[in-house]
């Protein structure tokens, strides 16, 4: 991999995008070939699900390519938009009351833009404390001023939790642009793509493994497919992919393996947490199909990143002291 390390940043990232789009193209061709064959209803359903997921990955890859091509500013803006849409979906699922109106407005139109503004302007210290300290004090105050004590703690917790996952967690992905490794300047944008790719890998492999293995689920009431073994296989697969991509990252191969494992493992566990949340909100079947409220399952797709990004960001920062 030494030769690959010698390449310039642009060449490396260009190569990576060629690989990513090549793999996607291959997957699309296989899907197309399969669609020409006669399929049993069960196979057909699986095929349709696969095509739907593949389309989501395509859209994601094209978006990242655009964000990479147009620089850090656009990437940050893109994540802010995704954050907004995810929070919108989260709040739709929760039962809020009239008294929450002002707190919700603050979460959407003050906290969210402010957080991304801080990311964009690289105020690093403020970025980590703005939501856990200031927003978490301000939001309950606004809630209390709403003059409605019914289930106050529950409602406040919902808004805070939504802000934490959808805004705080997600904002760590563009914050990777801030990290300054020695001899690795200007590649932050690539780390974002790297994180998204390994998390997506972990999720796909875990799904496939759980379908093959049919292990006893750990938390049956929440997810029928989650088992420790499939989780482990997913995280290891992500670690291996991370290892294969390590020539374009500041990590040594061993470090890349460990970081890939930890970050993507957190991501898939985050997915489990989101499933629990949806069960609580009374949503059973979600992914892809529009529900009664019209939500399309964006939250499902981004939740793993929301959980993986802060862990990735802080572990890398702590380990390398950047």
């Amino acid at each position, binding site marked *: 991999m030494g030769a690959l390390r010698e390449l310039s940043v642009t060449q490396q990232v260009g190569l990576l995008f060629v690989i990513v789009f090549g793999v996607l193209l291959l997957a699309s061709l296989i899907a197309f070939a399969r669609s020409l064959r006669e399929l049993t209803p069960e196979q057909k359903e699986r095929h349709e699900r696969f095509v739907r997921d593949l389309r989501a990955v395509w859209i994601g890859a094209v978006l990242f390519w655009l964000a990479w091509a147009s620089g850090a500013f656009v990437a940050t803006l893109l994540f802010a938009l995704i954050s907004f849409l995810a929070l*919108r979906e989260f709040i739709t699922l929760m039962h809020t009351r009239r008294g929450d109106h002002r707190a919700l407005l603050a979460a959407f139109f003050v906290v969210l833009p402010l957080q991304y503004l801080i990311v964009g302007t690289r105020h690093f210290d403020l970025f980590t404390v703005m939501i856990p300290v200031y927003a978490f004090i301000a939001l309950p105050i606004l809630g209390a001023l709403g003059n409605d004590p019914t289930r106050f703690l529950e409602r406040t917790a919902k808004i805070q939790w939504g802000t934490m996952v959808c805004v705080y967690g997600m904002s760590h992905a563009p914050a990777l642009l801030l990290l300054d490794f020695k001899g690795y300047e200007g590649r932050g944008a690539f780390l974002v793509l790297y994180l998204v790719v390994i998390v997506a890998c972990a999720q796909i492999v875990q799904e496939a493994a759980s379908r093959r293995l049919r292990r006893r689920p750990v938390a049956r009431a929440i997810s029928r497919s989650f088992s420790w073994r499939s989780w482990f296989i997913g995280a290891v697969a992500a670690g291996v992919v991370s290892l294969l991509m390590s020539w374009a990252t500041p990590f040594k191969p061993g470090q890349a393996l460990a970081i890939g494992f930890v970050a993507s493992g957190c991501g898939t566990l985050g997915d489990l947490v989101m499933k629990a949340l949806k069960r609580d909100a009374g949503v059973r079947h979600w992914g892809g199909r529009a529900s009664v409220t019209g939500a399309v399952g964006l939250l499902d797709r981004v939740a793993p990143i929301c959980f993986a990004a802060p862990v990735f960001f802080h572990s890398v920062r702590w380990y390398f002291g950047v």
Partner: protein
Amino acid sequence: MTLPEAAGLALAFVARLITGAQGHWKGSPPKAEQRIYFANHQSHFDWVLIWCALPRDLRSATRPIAARDYWTSGAFKHWLTREVFNAVYVSRTRSEDEDPLEPLVHALKNGDSLVIFPEGTRSNKGEPQPFKSGLYHLAEQFPNVPLIPAWIDNVQRVMPKGEVVPVPILCSVTFGAPMRLDAAEDKRVFLERARDAVIALGAPG
């Protein structure tokens, strides 16, 4: 593109960003024919949602009803309802010699589609209030125009009465199967049937 068209597109974009404004067509595909849509009424936002849920080509021929005294009182409000939404104005104060449905009848004779909220006022109790008889009279005079029930979900959370700024929460509009006034159907029976059709769309499932 004229200014009102651009304003309409911008407004539709903002409404989509905030509410998603998804239209679910169950039992009646969107079609360029004359129709009367009737829906539950919870917020000022209701009309905008229905308008956004319609395909773009149908928007200009589908008109809302606006109270004349309120929506012509300011220059901007008047411009918005007249130029962007092409609203049909009705007066809320009833004078002796004038039929309050006259402007609606006129619009329907023109071939336009209408969106009406038969409750007459905004309710926030969940279940819609009893329907006013306007829907019945229109159905009687225009027996060939299909009546489409619609259920607007979640919008009371976006903008509760008395608030100005909307909170981003996903909403949907469900359009049901067309219905008509049966021959010799009683007014009360018909209005009850229409209300049930709207409520049935809101039932989960």
